[in-house]
């Protein structure tokens, strides 16, 4: 029903933000804050793991787009992990698969970030 945000740093300058639950107009400000805090603290290579996300709306997409933009401005990057077909479909419908690098699992994303 709600959103859980769990962040870990597998190596210097790299963070994995694992989301589970619903990313919507109510919860996505928390995701934005987490991304902004990491970037401001100098962690600019981000992996956002959407594996546990069952609902993602346009507000959540906006936060991810904003995060990607801001990460790149700081010579970082933002990669996504997602294997849920429903959620992948939302990226396809909105044309965002062209903008985001989306991986099936976390280790692949961590190799590339």
């Amino acid at each position, binding site marked *: 029903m709600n959103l859980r945000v769990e962040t870990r740093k597998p190596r210097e300058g790299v963070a994995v933000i694992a989301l589970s639950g619903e990313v*919507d107009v109510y919860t996505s400000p928390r995701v934005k804050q987490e991304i902004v805090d990491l970037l401001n603290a100098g962690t600019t290579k981000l992996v956002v793991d959407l594996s546990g996300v069952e*609902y993602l709306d*346009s507000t959540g997409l906006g936060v991810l787009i904003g995060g990607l933009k801001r990460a790149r401005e700081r010579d970082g990057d933002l990669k996504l992990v997602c294997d849920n077909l429903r959620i992948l479909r939302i990226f396809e419908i909105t044309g965002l698969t062209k903008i985001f690098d989306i991986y099936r699992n976390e280790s692949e994303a961590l190799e590339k970030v």
Partner: protein
Amino acid sequence: MPTSKPLAQVELCIPSRPEYVGVARLAILGVASRMRFSYDEVEDIRLAVGEACTRSIDRLNGSAAEGHTISLRCLIDANRLTIEVTNPLVPAAPKPPPGESPESLPEGDLSGVLIRILMDEVEAEESQDEGTQVLRMVKYVAR
């Protein structure tokens, strides 16, 4: 847009605040899953309704007054579900940019793109007389 009397009707009014959009999504999940929609279609409807509510909240946040209400009306027919999402037309709401008709969803925004693709018919309407903005969406069963 369908005009005949629906078989059944469900109405919901929620405060125009982010934490209540989830209530609308759950109610619509209940309505849609009792119709002959596939799992994916139910999810499409749920997302479209969530987006419509989010748009209403965005519009109303441009207004000074607090305590607005968003109302949803679900018209249930054997072969289709029509959902009307209505918010009050508030004075301070941002005007649509020139050249864009108020009946159309603004192009290029993610929520508009989603609603158009997820639903079969979409129509926006503004009534100065009733002081409301309505987004009307239709999804057909087994098209």
